[in-house]
C-alpha cells in the first residue's frame, strides 16, 4: 500500500516557530513530527510515500532526502499555491492506483493507529479519536458504524469522535476531489469533499483509534506532544557521561555528546548528538535537547524542547518552554512558568507555559521572561530586561 503525506502547509498557529520551517519539521521527542509519521508507516511496511510539499519545502527535502535513511522511498510532489488539503491531495493523482492512505505530516501518530487504519474494511475509512478538545477539529457523527456527517471545527469545547485527518481512500476519490467547491476561505478542503460524498450517500467507515494520535495547535502545545513522543522510542546512551554525573530513568544521549560532572538528569529525556552539557546542569523530565546544544554550568531545564545549535548560558532556569534552533541565551535567564492568556490574532487563548523562543533569538544576561512570553525569529533581547507577551520577529528589546 502507498501513502500520501500532506506536508505543504505552514501550520500558521504554531508561529513563530513556523516562521522558518513548516509544522511537519517541528521536533517532538527530538524528531520532526513527520519522522514519527514516516516511522509509523514504515513499521506497517508502507514504504512508497508521496509527500506533498510547499511551504519551506527545502527543509523537508534536506532532512528526509529520498527516504532511504528512514527505510522508505519518498517522491516529493509540489503544491506551490497553498489552496487547501483537497487541492494538495490532487497532486498525487496518477501515482496511486489502488487503496492508499492519506495522513497529515504534522500530527503525532504511532504504528498501532496506522495498523488500525489499514486493517479496517471499507472503501473509505476515517481514523478517529475519542477526545475532549477545544473545538479545533472536525467532529464525526456516527450511526451504525458509518459516518453520517462531519461537523467542521465547531469552535467551542466539546467531546466526541474527532476526525484525525488520517484516511484510507480508493483512487475514486480523485474524481470527487475535482468537484470540491471552493470554501469561504478561498481554498479546497478535504472535509468539504468528504461532506459532499457523504451527502451523496457514499460510505465512510470510522475507526476509533486505540493507538497514539496527537496534535499541537499552538507552539506551546508542542510540550505535551513532546512528552508523548519521548515515550515512543527507546533511550540509548552513545555519548560520554563523565564520572560524577547522575542519570535516572530513560535518558538518551547521542554520539559525540558529553554530560559533564555534577550534572543530574532525570528521564524521560532525549539529548541529540554533539551536545556539551554542564558541568553541574540539571535536566528534568520531558525534555528534548537537539543536536550541538550547549548548556552552561548550573542551569536547570525542565519539561522543555531545546532545538539544535541552541546555546544556553550558565545559571539559567528554563521550564515549560520551547527554545528554537540556533538561539543564544545569555547567563542567568529565568523563565517563569504559570497560567497565562496569550493574545493570538485578536483573540485570547488560555495556556500554561513558560516561553516560546523562535529560531535565532539572542538574549543577553540576567533576563526575566514572564509566563506566556513568545519571541519571534531573530529577535534580540538586551541584558537586564524583563520580557512578556508577543515580541515580533527581528525586533530589538533594549530595556
Amino acid at each position: 500500500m502507498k501513502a500520501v503525506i500532506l506536508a505543504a502547509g505552514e501550520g500558521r498557529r504554531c508561529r513563530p516557530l513556523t516562521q522558518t520551517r513548516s509544522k511537519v519539521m517541528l521536533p517532538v521527542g527530538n524528531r520532526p513530527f513527520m519522522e514519527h509519521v514516516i516511522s509509523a508507516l514504515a513499521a506497517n511496511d508502507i514504504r512508497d510515500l508521496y509527500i506533498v510539499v510547499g511551504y519551506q519545502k527545502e527543509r523537508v527535502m534536506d532532512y528526509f532526502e529520498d527516504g532511504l535513511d528512514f527505510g522508505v522511498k519518498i517522491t516529493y510532489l509540489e503544491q506551490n499555491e497553498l489552496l487547501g488539503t483537497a487541492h494538495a491531495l490532487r497532486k498525487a493523482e496518477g501515482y496511486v492506483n489502488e487503496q492508499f492512505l492519506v495522513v497529515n505530516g504534522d500530527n503525532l501518530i504511532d504504528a498501532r493507529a496506522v495498523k488500525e487504519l489499514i486493517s479496517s474494511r471499507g472503501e473509505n475509512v476515517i481514523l478517529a479519536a475519542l477526545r475532549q478538545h477545544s473545538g479545533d477539529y472536525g467532529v464525526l457523527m456516527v450511526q451504525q458504524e458509518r459516518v453520517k456527517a462531519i461537523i467542521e471545527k465547531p469552535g467551542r469545547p466539546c467531546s466526541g469522535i474527532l476526525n484525525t485527518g488520517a484516511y484510507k481512500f480508493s483512487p475514486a476519490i480523485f474524481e470527487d476531489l475535482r468537484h470540491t467547491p471552493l470554501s469561504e476561505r478561498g481554498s479546497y478542503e478535504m472535509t468539504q469533499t468528504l461532506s459532499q460524498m457523504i451527502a451523496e450517500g457514499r460510505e465512510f467507515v470510522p475507526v476509533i483509534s486505540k493507538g497514539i494520535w496527537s496534535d499541537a495547535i499552538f507552539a506551546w502545545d508542542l510540550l505535551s506532544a513532546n512528552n508523548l513522543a519521548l515515550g515512543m522510542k527507546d533511550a540509548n546512551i552513545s555519548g560520554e557521561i563523565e564520572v560524577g554525573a547522575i542519570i535516572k530513568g530513560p535518558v538518551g544521549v547521542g554520539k559525540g555528546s558529553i554530560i559533564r560532572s555534577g550534572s543530574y538528569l532525570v528521564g524521560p529525556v532525549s539529548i541529540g548528538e554533539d551536545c556539551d552539557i554542564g558541568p553541574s546542569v540539571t535536566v528534568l523530565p520531558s525534555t528534548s535537547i537537539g543536536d550541538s546544544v550547549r548548556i552552561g554550568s548550573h542551569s536547570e531545564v525542565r519539561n522543555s524542547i531545546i532545538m539544535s545549535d541552541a546555546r544556553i548560558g550558565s545559571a539559567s532556569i528554563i521550564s515549560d518552554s520551547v527554545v528554537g534552533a540556533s538561539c543564544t541565551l545569555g547567563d542567568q535567564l529565568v523563565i517563569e512558568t504559570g497560567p497565562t492568556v496569550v493574545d493570538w490574532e485578536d483573540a485570547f487563548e488560555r495556556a500554561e507555559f513558560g516561553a516560546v523562543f523562535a529560531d535565532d533569538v539572542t538574549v543577553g544576561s540576567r533576563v526575566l521572561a514572564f509566563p506566556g512570553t513568545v519571541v519571534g525569529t531573530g529577535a534580540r533581547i538586551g541584558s537586564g530586561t524583563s520580557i512578556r507577551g508577543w515580541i515580533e520577529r527581528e525586533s530589538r528589546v533594549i530595556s
Partner: protein
Amino acid sequence: MCGIVAYIGDQLAGPILFDTLKRLEYRGYDSVGVAIKSGNGIEVLKSAGRIADLEKVYQSRGCPGESMGIGHTRWATHGRPSDQNAHPHTSGEIAIVHNGIIENYLVLREKLIKSGYEFASETDSEALAHLIHSHYRGDLYAAVRAALEDVDGSYAVAVLAASSPYLVCARKDSPLVLGKGASAVYVASDVPALLPYTKDVIRMKDGEVARIFADRVEITDRSGQPREAQVERINWSADAAEKGGYTHFMLKEIHEQPRAIRETIAGRISEIEGDVRLDLRISDEEIRGLERVTIIACGTSYHAGMLAKNLFARAAGLPVDVEVASEFLNLQVRPRNLLLGITQSGETADTLLALKKAKTCGLRSLAITNVLGSTVAELVDGTIYTRCGPEIGVAATKTFTSQLVAIILLAVRLGRARGHITPDQGRKMLIELTKLPGLVQRVLEKREEIREIAELYAGASCYFFIGRDYLYPISLEGALKMKEIAYIPSEGYAGGELKHGPLALITDKTPVVALATCGKKIQSNIKEVSARGAEVIAFATEGDPDIAKVASHVIELPQTQPIYSAVLCTVAVQLLSYYTANKLGLPIDKPRNLAKCVTVE
C-alpha cells in the same frame, strides 16, 4: 551510506554487478568489492577505491566467475576504508555483503574466536559471515536463519556459498529490493539500481529471508513460514530519486551545507579549553617551531587556500604562500616549512605531484580532503577530513565551505599551539563557529531574494565580483562559479585593485557583486563602479545603515565575525550562480568540458 547488490541468472555475473554498483555510486564509492561463484570456489575481488578501478582489475583477470554473485559499495564516514574492511567478507566457502549495524557483534566475535574463528577485519559484518559459517551444514538458507536468531541490530544482507545453488537475502531495518527478470533475479539496496534490468520489483519486508534462484524467489519469515512475494511494477524513471526532490544535485548540495559544516566540526572542538582536536601527527613543539606554511591547491580549493593565507597570519602568526599546484615548479625548501595540500577528492594529480616533491625534501605536510583513505592521505603526515559525503555536482559547493571550516579549525589549533591566541580567544572563535550552521541556514532562506536578482541579470555578458580581506578569495570563487555553471565571463577582484585597470571594463551592462560584510572600505569601491553606471548587488551585514545608499540591490546576511561571513557570502554567491544558470537552462550538474575529479596533470 552503503549499497549492496546481488545477481543470479544466465549471464556472467561480474559485468552486471559492476553496473548495478555504479548506479548505487551516489551512495558512496570509497571501497568496493564483489564475490562471484567460480567453479567449486568463490572469486573475491575487493579494494579501497573506485568501482571503475576494481572493474578494470576484474577485466584484466579475464572476467572470472559464473552467473551468480554479490557486491558492495561503501562510503566511510568514520573509520578508514581499507582492503580488509571492504566487503564482501568471507568465512570458508561463504561470502556475504552487509548493510546495517550488528549491535551485539562484540559478544558474537568473542564467542566465534573461542570456537576457533580468525578475524581479518574489525567490522561487525565479518562476525556475521563467521556466524553463518558456524551454522552451515550444506543448507545455506537454514544457516542464515539460524545465524540471524543470534543477531541484534539492523541488516540487509546477501549471502553466497560455493556449494549452494541459490543465494540467500534477508533484511531488517535496512533497505533491500529484489528485481525479477525473465531468467534472472537482481538484488539491490534501492530501486533505481535495478531499473535498467527490470521494472518488476519485490520489496523485502523486515524479518523476511529469501532463497533466490535464477527463475524464482522463495520468501519466508525467520521461522520458515512461507510469505507471498508481492511483485510491484515500477513506473518512475531512474534518476529522480537520487536528488531527493531537488532539480539538481548542486542545489541539493548547497542546501546540505549546514549539515556538512556541523559534521566537519563534530567532536573536534573543546569550548572549555578553547582548543581544537585534530589528528595532525605533528607535535606542539614542531608547530611552535614552524616559520612558514606553503599551501598547494587547484581550482576552488585554491580559493580556500587564499583564505587560509590571511587567517593563518592573524591567528597563528604564520606567513603563508599559496601556490596553484600546476605552477608549483620550484620548491624552495626551507627547513621549518609546513606544506598543506587542499584537495576535495584527494586524487587531484597536480596537487599530489607537488606534495610528492615536498615529501622527497623531508618537509612536514598536512592535507585537507573529503575522501577517506584517498591517495593524498598516504602522502602526508596528518589529514583533516571534511565530512560532507559524496559531492555529485561538478561545481564544488559543500566541499568548499567545509574546507573553509577545516581551515578555521586548523588555524585555531596552530594559533593555540603557538600561543598566538589565548584560550579565551580560541573559545570565542569556537563559540561563533558552532553558530555557523544556523547562520548558513538563514542565508539559504534568502533564496527567493537571490533568485529574483539572478534572473534579473541572467542576460549579462560579463559579471564582476569584488571583495576585500577574507572576502577577496570569495569574490574569486563567485566568479569561478559564474563561469563554470552559468558560462558568463566573470572577474573576481580585490576591491582596491579595480582602479588599477579593470575599471575600464565597467559599464552599465556589467553587474557588480560586492561582498561587503567585512569592513567599510568596500563602500568606496562600490561608489567607483556605480559612478560608472554599473548595477551593484551587495551582500552586506544585516542592519548596515550605509550600504543601501550606494548599492542598487542589498541582500542582508546575518551578523558574525568577518572570517565566518566569508562562509555566508560563499553560500550567497553559490545561490546567485545556480539561479543564473537555471534561468539560462544550462546543464548545471555536468557543465561542458569539466570533470569532478581531475586526475590528469
